[in-house]
């Protein structure tokens, strides 16, 4: 399952939110991916979360499969849509 979010933070996904995404993702036993311009990045990798280079206004799809995937997607979406 997947859901799209748009980046609300003016500074984009910088180190702090990137770290928050990884922290959140590591709490789930299944793979979670962020998709930008049809490229896939693992939400469990800080390197990936930084190299995604998500900027203000970008559309990002969060995708996961497994028990509790919807909760995981929402939790990560919360970070993506945060203004800070």
């Amino acid at each position, binding site marked *: 399952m997947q859901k799209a979010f748009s980046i609300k933070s003016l*500074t984009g996904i*910088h*180190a702090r939110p990137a770290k928050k995404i990884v922290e959140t993702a590591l709490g789930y036993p299944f793979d979670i991916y962020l998709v930008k311009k049809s490229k896939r990045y693992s939400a469990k*990798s*800080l390197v990936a979360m*930084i190299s995604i*280079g998500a*900027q203000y206004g970008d559309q990002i799809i969060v995708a996961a499969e497994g028990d509790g995937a919807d909760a995981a997607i929402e939790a990560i979406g919360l970070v993506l849509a945060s203004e800070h």
Partner: protein
Amino acid sequence: MKNSSNSILGGVIVMRLMGMPASEGAALAQSSIVRIDDRSKLQYFSIKPSETRIELELFHIAVKQAEEELSEIHARLKLANRELDAEIIEVQLFFLQDAELLESVRQKISGLFYSAQMAVQETMNEIVEKIDSLENPYLQQRATDFKDVCWRMIRKLRGEDEQFSLMEIQEEKGKIILLCEDLTPSEAVRLKPEIVAGLVTAEGGAMSHVAIIARSLGIPAVVGVGNDLLHINNGEWLLLNGTDGTVRTGAYNVLLDAYRQLSQRGEGELTVERSGVAKVTHNIGTTVLSNISSIAEARIAKNNGFSGVGLFRTEFLFMGREDFPKEEEQFAIYKEVVSIFGSDTPIIIRTMDAGGDKQLCSLPIKKEDNPFLGLRGIRVSLRYPEQFRIQLRAILRASFYGQIKLLFPMIATIEEWKSVLCEVERTKAGLRKERIPFNEQLEVGILVEVPAVAILIDRFLETADFISIGTNDLTQYVMAVSRTDTDTTLSQLHDPLQPAALQLIRHIVAEAHAKGKKVSVCGEMASHSLAAPLLLGLGVDMLSINCVSAIALQSELLSQNQDNVQLREIAEKALELESPGQIEQYLRHRLKWVVGRENIMNTNDKPFRS
């Protein structure tokens, strides 16, 4: 790069490196080399297929060791309540556990038969390249953290001891002289004078912000030493002379003697400085104000007897952090500076001057080919009006408590200036509506750095209450030469004594005085013992100088009896001359008290490199 000399004396190799004097004073301490990693040679070699298992195991151990080191550093920082620094290490720890990184390294070992070292190096290069290609300077800074982590692993694989990194310099190691290729401004603001006795960089010019920050912290510094820096070993005793721009190695006793001589001279000057400012103000009729960039510097300036602040560089409140300081935080800082000086003292606050070589983590400015000709100063503030408005509100609120004036950097056109005035009025209207008190008569001024403003200054003066001239930037834009250039011939062009720059200053002063408005100068030039009297002769009303490098100027101005008429005549004559060299020679001759004080002046033919 420049003439360095080596000799062998009593078995100890004695080296003398020449750079550019960037921050006055002498320091004697052991060297500490930072980030030399980037220059250490990469070692490329592969392994036999049968060795992959052991190589993977070695890699695993290196990761564990690196993790232990970082965790320990993290714990120490937490204990010292250095939350922001601790957070940087936390990010590094995350990198160390990164699945993508670890997987890529393992694949290179087991699939391509790379040695673990080489696998880490290759992975590091691949990922850094990817981050660099995003062209986002903020993320590129994170790449530095990432490289730091990779090098830690590589060091572990090589069995090498840990080298210093800026974050890890601990107080118990005693004072050190920091050696590095270059420092970004946000790194430089983290320098601690209680640990760093001196600073030597391979790159950078004397007008770079690293130099300015070192001066404001009172850390003696020599910049632009070039590759000679590589010849100094970690832990070697160094004598740094930030006044003449030299760094010496040699036997400790010899260096100590030389240091004592230097610092005795220095202390003599310091005593003069204590009572200096008030008298200068009195004798010459010129107000001498100080440049500050923090509350700590406001206190230093107050202690040194300054009667006010001529330039509060607020961007340093915004640097080295990922978020913007909120209105309340800024308000508290501005109010505190007012309360340090008292409610009758002028405090000129310059709004955030980001861009150029001062990058903010919190503001993504696209990489520019010529940052000094790009998005900086007021251009940034008008591009991001939300942050600008917050700052204006905080300053206006603080204006209720004292004599705050507002100064705007990098104004180039009348339209920009009108937008700025609009924003100020808008903020005032908002405060009135909320019944929050502020100074209705708050003065607004333009910082003249762009030649366009200088040329049309009469039009700006219709709405500006005062003018401040930033000579560092004005000279760079008038002469079309970068102030951070280390090329010797080019950096001579960046000389505030260039006749064209002086002529422009005279023009600005004449126009301002015709409209009954005051002009101050806040560039490095204002604190120079030859240039300051010249500025006074040109009619400049106020000088704003660094709270530390002010020492020489004050003692010099004090010891002379020339009055304004005489200085005016000297300035007129100086303007007729052809080159900075001729002007300097003439000034030396006319302002005789400077002769013989060569420790203050740079005696080579580049008078304004300090």
